């Protein structure tokens, strides 16, 4: 009594609905941390990290399967409304509904056969096809350069924030010192009076 391909596909789709695609994760994040973090929203069933290869640098992301679709949606809306940070600040994580292509191994679409054809050079469509091929490659390089741009912007923001943070921290230290000093001065005064 084995489920047919359609049933498996449907079951997988159902699983996809329950899964959250979590992005902008700290590269050193572990499974356990994510689990604890998301356990507040419900039952974390499974966590799969998205591996990092491909033309574009895939950001550190994970697919988190929850107990049911409601929990998954809850996470997505919560994270969209409030900046949620996991193991590192201040960059918040992003959560989206997962899509089936995000999974590394999903079942084939039922009824899928792949007919392929070698085009003949004399075929009029050959030219078009070649053009398409070139365009596709061009698009890929466009995408990767956009990605590089994005990285640059992120770096800028990161540096800027680091500066701000340092300044704020200095302020805090000064206040700290000042207060202690102040207290110290008072104590000395008391002491000398005695």
């Amino acid at each position, binding site marked *: 009594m084995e489920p047919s391909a359609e049933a498996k596909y449907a079951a997988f789709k159902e699983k996809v609905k329950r899964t959250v695609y979590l992005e902008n994760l700290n590269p050193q994040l572990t499974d356990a941390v994510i689990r604890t973090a998301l356990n507040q929203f419900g039952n974390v069933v499974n966590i799969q990290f998205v591996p990092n290869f491909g033309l574009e640098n895939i950001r550190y992301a994970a697919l988190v399967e929850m107990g049911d679709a409601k929990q998954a949606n809850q996470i997505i809306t919560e994270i969209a409304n409030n900046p949620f940070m*996991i193991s590192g600040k201040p960059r918040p994580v992003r959560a989206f509904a997962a899509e089936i292509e995000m999974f590394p191994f999903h079942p084939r679409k039922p009824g899928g056969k792949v007919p392929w054809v070698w085009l003949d050079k004399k075929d009029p469509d050959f030219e078009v096809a070649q053009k398409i091929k070139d365009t596709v490659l061009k698009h890929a390089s466009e995408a990767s350069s956009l990605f590089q741009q994005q990285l640059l912007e992120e770096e800028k923001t990161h540096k800027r924030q680091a500066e701000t943070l340092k300044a704020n921290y200095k302020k805090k230290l000064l206040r700290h010192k000042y207060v202690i000093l102040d207290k110290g001065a008072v104590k000395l005064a008391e002491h000398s009076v005695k």
Partner: protein
Amino acid sequence: MVEVDDVANLEFNWGKKRGVGGKRKEVQFYESFTYDGVDYNLYDSVYMVKEGEPEPYIGKLIKIWESGDKSKKVKVQWFFQPSEISRWLDDVSVLENEIFLATGEGVGLANVNPLEAIAGKCNVVCTSKDSRNHQPSEEELKLADYVFYRTFDVGSCTILDKMDDKVGGTEVRFVFNKKESEAACAVPERIPDGKDEKECAVACNAVEFNTLSTTVGQPESLLGEEVTASKAGTVKDELEMATDTKVKAEKRPQPANFHSDSEEKPSKKAKKDDVIKSSVDKSRKKLVERGSDVKTMPTAADVPAENTKSGNNVPIRQAKDKPSKQGKVDCPRKEKNINNIEKGPSNKEKLGNKTKGLSGGRPDVDNSKWFRQSPFEDRVEIAQKDGTILMLHNLDPEYVSGEVEDIIWHALKEHCSAKMVQRTKISTPHSGQAIVIFKTRDGTERAMTKLNEGCLMLPNGRPLVCSTPSTFPGKQSTFYGHLVIDNKTLGQREKKGAVSTSHCSQPNTIEYDMAMEWCLLQARSDSWWKRLYKKQGLELRRLKATFKSK
């Protein structure tokens, strides 16, 4: 005891003993008993009849004993029917035959009752999708009297979805579904009662790894004879380990090498036999050691799996490079090929031959994921150096890696292993990509020239495009956005807390401002990507429109 029997007029026999208790050791705990011809085990679900109540209650036996005065008692943890807790169900949707297990502390969690109040066994199946739970088959679901996957906290009167390590004082593994062999021989916890239990215990270990229970006999025979050293104490540890590792195993990336080449199969088979022997030897010696348990148990379990041919093999994930697994996985994939590719009947036959040698597992695409994760990444690096790697573009995003390999095989006559690049938020929505590793550099070059010079058309006007990835981004690319304060003056506690927890930021902090900046940047980049892909989409559509034959 005889008296009671006469009065009740129902047959009764005690089963396995468990331990003693009470001030004067007059209380004898048991693990199982037979009552009125039905076998009951600890943690079984039963019907309890109460005088005057028309409907029986459903409970879980969590303690069974006979006290000094020879009265038999059971402690029962209750299941609630939806009608019993309707007040707190509100807008929660409930299944037809769903019940809720009591958890928490307080009145209503559990009660002690005379054993004679038991009215029969109840088939309750746990449908919780928790990874620690053995998922029930469709048959089991049909046969179930009731299902449950949620608990009701009697203290807070709330429905809880997830289960911690203990539910109402009962360890969660006794809450989840028993594996068949466990049901048969009761969870051996402390004192073993002879060889049977040992064998059972070992079988339990093996089956714990979710090798579907079709041939429980096999693990026993294979391991029962050899494994003599198992002591009950260690068995208990193992079981715990088993559940622990099971949980861990599922999260860990699943390494195993994929070979699409048929020549390696005979050698794999030989290796399988060695594995069996070595695993059994290992299990004999190493049952006590924790660390190695992790390795040996799956190998032991591997064997029954190979023999049982459980298609739904979510399990047995841990061991790296287990040849038996490779053989098994290989076969399903090839079988798939036969099903799905139309052209080239001669190719079909070829594939058919390849699959002959192997135990025909049911092709199960879903579960091929457990053998593929990290090694592919390693292989990518190696392949880059060897020049056997290609990147394919313009695939239908819905394709699966297997389909890609089929296409390459049929169209280019090259063996390869492919992996579809997983979609992310910034991947192009118009097409999918795949990384393909060929067997030889020549093969790679041949494929590339063919693809570049000619046009391999896939459906929907998609000519296949390939490229050599010149650089693969390293695994440690810079991740921006996480700042750390080096604060020696601020308390240690604060520092630790800052990094390891997750939280939502409060609007009155600096952190919040920064987070908002990131959100803003994110929103901007999202819009860039959107525009880029829109433009690209238009370009592609225009080109495809010029296809004369379509």
